[in-house]
């Protein structure tokens, strides 16, 4: 059974909340509004796609949702905690605890094997080496790569690399999974596999957010947030 989004339910805290957030680059005549007074709530169980043409502000949105950037104005609340105003180290801590990332270019560390890459997400968390290895192996198995643990990124196909990246994002058990064009560098078969994994990752406690300009990827999500010129132009939830 697929979980329903809880956006309208009372008493459920949003996982992530953007409140009239703006992000401005440059100053004076060169001022560019990448985001203009955007408000958005990501609820537990959400499966959201953020779509829009290039320059619509979706990458900026991703940066802000992932606590990689701070807004020029407005408030961002992650898991009930206001992250705007936190210093870099505190934001990094919130990010590491709450959010998992998947990128178009995979961004695996080339000199580490698959399990090593997944383990990187568990470093500096006070875990023993054995525990880290066990959790990384479990994550790799959950994406179907248990047997390729000792392969380095160059020895893996694009689809496999993205699945390793997915395992790395999952291994910390994040409440929010942020995927940036997760299928952008993959052929259709691998793209399908990755989308299937992403779809299955969504759960009543977790939200999956995909930033994309690919229509088929966007359509896989239950909730579709469309952007244009730094604003949200539509936010449609379809019930399955």
């Amino acid at each position: 059974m697929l979980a329903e989004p809880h956006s309208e339910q009372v008493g459920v805290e949003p996982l992530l909340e953007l409140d009239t957030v703006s992000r401005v680059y440059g100053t004076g005549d060169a001022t560019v509004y990448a985001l203009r007074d955007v408000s958005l709530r990501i609820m537990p169980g959400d499966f959201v796609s953020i779509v829009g043409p290039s320059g619509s502000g979706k990458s900026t949105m991703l940066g802000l949702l992932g606590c990689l950037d701070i807004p020029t104005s407005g408030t961002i609340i992650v898991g009930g905690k206001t992250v705007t105003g936190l210093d870099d180290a505190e934001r990094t801590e919130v990010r590491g605890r709450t959010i998992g990332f998947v990128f178009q270019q995979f961004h695996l560390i080339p000199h580490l094997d698959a399990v090593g890459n997944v383990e990187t997400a568990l470093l500096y968390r006070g875990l023993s080496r054995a525990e880290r290895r066990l959790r990384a192996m479990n994550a790799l198995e959950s994406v179907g790569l248990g047997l390729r643990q000792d392969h380095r990124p160059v020895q893996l196909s694009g689809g496999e690399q993205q699945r390793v990246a997915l395992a790395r994002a999952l291994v910390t058990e994040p409440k929010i999974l942020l995927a940036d064009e997760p299928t952008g560098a993959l052929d259709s078969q691998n793209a399908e596999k990755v989308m299937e994994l992403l779809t299955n990752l969504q759960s009543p406690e977790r939200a999956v957010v995909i930033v994309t300009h690919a229509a088929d990827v966007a359509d896989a999500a239950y909730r579709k947030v469309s952007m244009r010129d730094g604003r949200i132009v539509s936010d449609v939830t379809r019930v399955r």
Partner: protein
Amino acid sequence: MKTARDLLRVAVTGLYARKVRTLLLLLGPMIGVAAIIAAVGLTDSAKGDLKAKVNQLGTNLIEVAASSSFGSKDPTLPEDVIPRAENVLTLKSVAQIRELSNIVVTPYNEATDKYEAVPIPVLASDTRLPSVLEVKLISGRWLNGFDDSTVTRSAVIGIGLARQFSYLPGEVRTIELDGIRYGVVGVLSEVELEPSFDNAVFISFPSAKADFVTTAKESDKVLPNKLYVRSVVGAEKITAEALRVAINLGGQDELTTDIKSEALQLAAQSDQQIKLIVVSMGILASIVGGVGIANVMSISVIQRSAEIGIRRALGHTRSIIASQFLLEALFIGLLGGICGVVLGILSIFVGATIAGWVFVLAPWLIPAGIALAMVISVIAGLYPSVRAARLEPLETLRLG
């Protein structure tokens, strides 16, 4: 604690995974440290045999000699010179001698014609001389209290004289001093700090007084004219200074002091200028190596910006990233330092062997060399580390 362990593991893994780059980084501090160690070691080894001799002989032997003001002959020290000298607190031991003049020494009476031409020093000595000089006897014994109290005609001869007169060790022989027959009771081994003793004959003060009093000016006493003093090590100069005052007690007699090992020590000193130049070049090489580390690591930070970005996204803080790079630099310094020390020691060994020198290496150079390499590497790694930490993940990850 666990964080430190994780940092360590990641640093080692990173360095091991990029072996060629790591080796290139190692070269700088390695060559620098090797140059410094080799420079110091080789300049020291060049004088290694002399240094060893200085260590063996000790640096604290002082000779005190009576010297008179202009004109007067045969200057002597006061009769109670020993108790006076012993007032000096830094004095460890003291012995007195008197150089007797114009005594013809021959192995046996009939050889007078042959040996008369060669003057052989005859010294009246007290019983403590060998222990103060720290010299052993090749055979027999030194003059003792029995010789003193009974005025026995006993003599000890130097090893050079024993060879010249073909005295075999342990052989019972006599020696003629101005025709007076003395029994040779012992042969003194080589006295490196006082080579003239090797050809000398030693007799007791009472014998000197009994047999050669006419050659000594004093009517009833044979006064010493030289002291040999061992001082506390390191206090040679002040001891010499104090002895002059303590013995003279403000009198008008003059005396000279001579630290016997001073010349040897000077000869054994490494060529400081050459050492300074080569060490400077070594330090320069280390600094250039450090600049190399800063360069390569800066490029590495750019190359690894995506890795840094993803680590930051995964929750690694800026300080973790900076520590990571600093730790890599520290390891490079440690490894480079160790390799440099090994290379340096090898160079000294090869150099000393080829030149026939004695291998000398001050042990403190080993930790100092490694520490220098580590300090330079960490300083060189500071800038790239800070740059790595300042990278914004959003800029390096090329989103969307």
